[in-house]
């Protein structure tokens, strides 16, 4: 085998990533689309990742009382788990209470988080309809949505959270800690 052929073979069998000094084996297997679809739980603020399904606050309240109330208390008042709604103190008060309605910037985050992490003792057990229903219930606690809203992909995307403009992007912006002191 000539030296040139050897080099060609080596190039074919390895990938040499830009910026790395060392060749690496390219051992990743193509991910089947079906695997990606089943694993991908990320819901973006523009609604990417929201599945089909629907639920309303009334059914959400029943699910809440079955799965959530032990840690978050009735009406989202909070106990060992976060206060979720009906804050008695605002964000600029002496002892602020951060809740979904007064703090969370995106309603899509609520769907993403409930679906992936809740309930704590049996995460991943809720159907998409149940997650939409819980999302509706929690948003209705503070009147972010009317109680009779049927929450689904389209209606969730229409929700504008009251604190949507409440965040300062320190990574891409130039406030405070991005400047040397």
């Amino acid at each position, binding site marked *: 085998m000539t030296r040139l052929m050897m080099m060609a073979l080596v190039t074919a069998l390895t990938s040499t*990533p830009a910026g790395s000094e060392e060749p690496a*084996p390219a051992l990743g297997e*193509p991910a089947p689309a079906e695997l990606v679809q089943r694993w991908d739980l990320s819901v973006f603020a523009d609604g990417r990742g929201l599945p089909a399904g629907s639920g309303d606050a009334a059914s959400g309240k029943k699910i809440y009382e079955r799965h959530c109330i032990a840690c978050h208390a009735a009406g989202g008042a909070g106990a060992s788990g976060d206060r979720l709604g009906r804050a008695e103190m605002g*964000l600029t008060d002496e002892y602020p209470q*951060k809740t979904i309605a007064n703090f969370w910037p995106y309603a899509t985050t609520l769907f*993403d988080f409930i679906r992936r992490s809740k309930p704590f003792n049996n995460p991943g057990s809720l159907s998409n309809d149940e997650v939409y229903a819980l999302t509706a219930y929690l948003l209705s606690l503070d009147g972010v949505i009317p109680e009779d809203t049927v929450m689904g992909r389209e209606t969730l995307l229409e929700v504008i959270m009251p604190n949507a403009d*409440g965040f*300062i992007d320190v990574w891409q912006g130039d406030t*405070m800690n991005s400047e040397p002191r």
Partner: protein
Amino acid sequence: MHSKTPRQPSATELEPVAGNGLLDRRLLLKYGLGFGASGALATLLPAAAAPPARAPWMNEPGDAFSNYGRPSDHEDGVIRWISDNADVAGNGVSWTPLHSLEGTIVPNGLHFERHHNGIPAIDPAAHRLLVHGLVDRELVFDLDRLLRYPMQSRICFIECGGNSNAAWNRTPPQAAVGYFNGLVSNAEWTGIPLRVLLDEAGIKGEAAWLIAEGADAFAMQNSIPLQPALAEGLLALYQNGERLRPENGYPMRLVIPGLEGVRNVKWVRRLMLAAEPVMARNETARYTDLLPSGKARQFAMVMNARALLTFPASGHELPGPGYYQIKGLAWSGRGRISRVEVSADDGASWADAALDEPVLAKAFTRFRLPWRWDGQRVRLKARATDDSGYRQPQRTELIVERGHHAFYHFNGILTFEINPDGTIRHVYDAADDDGAGDGADIDAGWF
């Protein structure tokens, strides 16, 4: 036969370089740590209690070998301090006992923990890593294949964004210094540069964020800017030479040096490239710093420089006046520590501390300074500057800028008051006392 008298510093050399007995850091190099110790040694050997010719443990065979060693039983107080959720035991934190450790590498069994819903019992043979999103080829890897990739080692700290959260309180916490500042640890991580795996998948031009997800019950998700992930990120498989501990992400985790702990996703199973952050719960509702204005700082993920006294500090007591070595750790998520200064007079004068080599970027740097305590009440402080020019702020500056409810990203200078009886308290500067409020505790839990 004569024994050579150990050289001792001259009276001139023992002149303090800053107030209340801070001595020149170069004494450590010149005379080692032993100077000034002879007076103390005498009291260790009272004639009445002279040690036997052979200590008892010299008179019988010792223990046999062990397959995996553990610390001496006499060190069983050197433990992580657990603060967990009463209803969900795997939700909470455990603090590294920095006040009991030396050097810069935190032993694996003492590395701090932050879990959102427990430590998953992952079968490494069944674990997969998926790379997808804005890539040319969506790929899946198993552990056996990943172990064949070229690896790199990196010594760096990982600090929880919520470390030292109690220092935002109006009343100074009095726990041992590691038990309110020890959500930071430093280790040698070994793994595959993320760039290698992402390049294999082919990064599309519009990709700017890496969204990572763990295989824990929380399915912990977080967004990481692509730039630091590509520049320095590792898919870590080893921690201080051995495979990751379960509580630190076994069998694989992200390590992005300098970024807050939550971005260093443990038990990682999915990496998704995207044009924008996913706006996960842990980068919106949490890990954001509420300001007095009602706005919140978001993506404040670079852990800024700080120096932390580990001795003397809360958790210790001084036996009496005399010579001590002041010690601590400094680190910065921006780069190398360039300077640590220590004050023993409440910030009126400062002396440069000696920095142990090597001083590594985004890693613990051990600092030391000799000190002669005269037994009076003194206030010790340490402050760090890094090679980006960032200087650690006073607590007052942070409070003025961010109020009392930021909860995350505290890196202010701490003050420890040594009382004449040798007890030590964590105190705030007089200027820190804004007179408002009732001293209530922090307003948000970990959970």
